[in-house]
């Protein structure tokens, strides 16, 4: 799996117990998950820390019953893969770092061996333009959660009553066929069409799932931004805006709308009958963390990566890192399938 990125000093990273820095890079969609995981990992909170790890009277860690350990957080997860505990707060058995860019960059970085883990919110096949076979021969695809990619509008539009659009309308907006909100029942105002950077997973997934082709044209876009956060900022700062993004970035000023696909209305509400939080939602997508298959690690995932990835596949991880970020946790059977891709625990 791991290339020589981050530790090209020639440090020994073929063995699972190397303690060199674990690097991840890529998707701004996956970033909230992996970065939160990474910060928990690096904090290596002791079991007495009821806020971030461990159980005590005041707070209960989700899924604590499964874990129930008296070790520090990273010590525990790394220990499962044979790493020595440090028993030090803020000093994990090996540190991790997550860089933020977008999926295309993450996939390229893992391909070129620059990082251990490539985060991507679109399939690597679309990001790198490779076939399924090539992908499965070279990379291991670890799915850690799901995003019900929302379409959002600025609050002035939402308040003016545009709370639902059809899939066709959205496509028309993005392909420059509809340019004024009045055409879809809103106020007489130009539509500020916001897109994500080309090469981002969000963009690829949107073209794929909404426009039907990863290379579909998007001539209607007025403005493109590098990261989801910037999109959110732009939507809240400007009137008449529409954008696609990831669930983690919605807020009061960045309102997701309901979308009508062929008569089925997917609501931005977890409790609705048809919800964008459901895998049936056409824009629903997997959030990936790719690792590279190399000669040293034919399985594709070494012990460091395994220990880190395993953390996300626990109930604890799904709840804290995925669900608390407003993403969709994996169903149990998917978790089992994903766990199967990891190396055996010590």
């Amino acid at each position: 799996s791991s290339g020589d990125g981050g530790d090209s000093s020639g440090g020994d990273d073929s063995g699972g117990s190397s303690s060199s820095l674990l690097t991840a890079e890529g998707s701004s969609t996956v970033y909230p998950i992996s970065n939160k995981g990474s910060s928990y990992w690096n904090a290596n909170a002791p079991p007495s820390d009821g806020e971030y790890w461990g159980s005590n009277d005041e707070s209960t860690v989700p899924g604590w019953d499964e874990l129930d350990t008296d070790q520090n957080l990273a010590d525990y997860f790394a220990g499962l893969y044979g790493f020595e505990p440090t028993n030090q707060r803020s000093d994990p058995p090996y540190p991790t770092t997550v860089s933020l860019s977008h999926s295309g960059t993450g996939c390229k970085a893992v391909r070129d061996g620059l990082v251990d883990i490539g985060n991507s919110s679109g399939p690597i096949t679309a990001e790198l333009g490779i076939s399924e076979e090539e992908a499965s021969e070279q990379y291991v695809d670890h799915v850690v959660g799901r995003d019900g990619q929302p379409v959002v509008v600025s609050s002035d539009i939402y308040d003016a009553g545009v709370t639902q659009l059809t899939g066709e309308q959205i496509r028309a907006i993005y392909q420059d066929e509809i340019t004024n909100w009045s055409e879809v029942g809103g106020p007489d105002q130009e539509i500020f069409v916001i897109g994500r950077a080309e090469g981002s997973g969000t963009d690829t997934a949107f073209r794929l799932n909404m426009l039907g082709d990863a290379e579909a044209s998007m001539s209607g876009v007025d403005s493109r931004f590098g990261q989801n956060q910037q999109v959110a900022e732009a939507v809240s700062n400007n009137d008449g805006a529409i954008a696609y993004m990831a669930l983690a970035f919605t807020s009061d000023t960045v309102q997701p709308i309901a979308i009508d696909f062929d008569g089925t209305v997917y609501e931005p509400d977890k409790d609705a009958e048809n919800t964008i939080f459901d895998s049936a939602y056409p824009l629903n997508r997997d959030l990936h963390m790719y690792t590279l298959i190399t000669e040293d690690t034919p399985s594709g995932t070494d012990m460091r990566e395994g220990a880190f990835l395993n953390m996300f596949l626990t109930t604890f991880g799904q709840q804290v890192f995925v669900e608390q970020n407003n993403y969709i946790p994996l169903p149990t059977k998917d978790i089992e399938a994903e766990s199967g891709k990891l190396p055996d625990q010590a």
Partner: protein
Amino acid sequence: MIGTRMLAARNALTRRWRRLSGFVSDQESAAVATVGVMTVALVSALVGFLLVSPLTVVPFAVFIVAAGYGWLSYQGLTARMLTLSMTVSTILILLLITLFIFVEAIPVFVYESATVFGVTVPGLRMFIQPNWDAVSPPIRYSMVPMIHGTVMVTTIATAVAAPLGVSAALFLSEIAPSTVREIVKPGVEILAGIPSIVYGFIGFTILGPWAADQFRTTGQGSYLFVGIIVGLMALPTVVSVAEDALSSVPESMKSGSLAMGTTDWQTMTSITIPAAFSGVSAAVLLGVGRAIGETMAATVMLRGVPQLTKPLYNAFYGQATLTSLIANNYGEADGLQMDALFAAGVILFITVLVISIGSQYIEWRMRRKLGGEN
């Protein structure tokens, strides 16, 4: 004619060679040997570095040792050799920069060739068709939108920086009492120090939304405000170079005019500015160069969609400049698209280089003219 010129060239060469050999023969042979070792080691280290060899460090270490020995034994000669190699390195870096960005840009020039009158011109299509699309076929890497954006931003920036800058330079060199100058001059310099990302930050979070609101545009990001901000950034360059030019007009000329009973304003407009005209225009040119190369403010504030504004003079919209294209897309770009970014770099590089050389030429002419030569 050509014959005599060649003869002259040969004479010059032989003279050089004789001088060099004379120089070498004047030195102790051990000194010459040391310098020889240094030269060979340095050249090998350079070659090693260029070839990405891990052994680069060996010749480099030899160079260091030889230089150390030479320093202790033949300081004058070694110093001369060292400073020469530093000069050569500096030139080499310039050559490398030119070489690398050009080489990297070649594939996209080939890809975007177009045929006119039966002649295939590499890269022509980048300049004659206006669509950039790096995702949907047909993939097109047109530079037209970015050139348009750069021209828009630079024009607006120049309109801001040139008059204000020249007037401020005039103020500093001719008008301000010395106490005021002591305050304003560092102030202008500090203005030059404010990092462009800080401007970009303020522009993106405050100015952008404000302008979108004022002009009722569809969303934020306009050439107008990027231009104004970039103009503000180019201002200090214009001020300091123009001030140099203005104050290099000899005091005797200014006194000559004042002694005739003209006002100082008349002296400025009739004597000082005309005499310093070349220098002042060089200042403006350098400011233009700065504006063209400005990156981060544009990257953060613009819309990042490479297309022409409609109509072309609509400065209330801001799409992309050559610089912002690179900064926005280097991350996910790959293959040809990456090469296209290098092509943008090449355009920037050549433009700015031409401007720089032009302004140097103008300044050189001015110095000659004030020196009394015509």
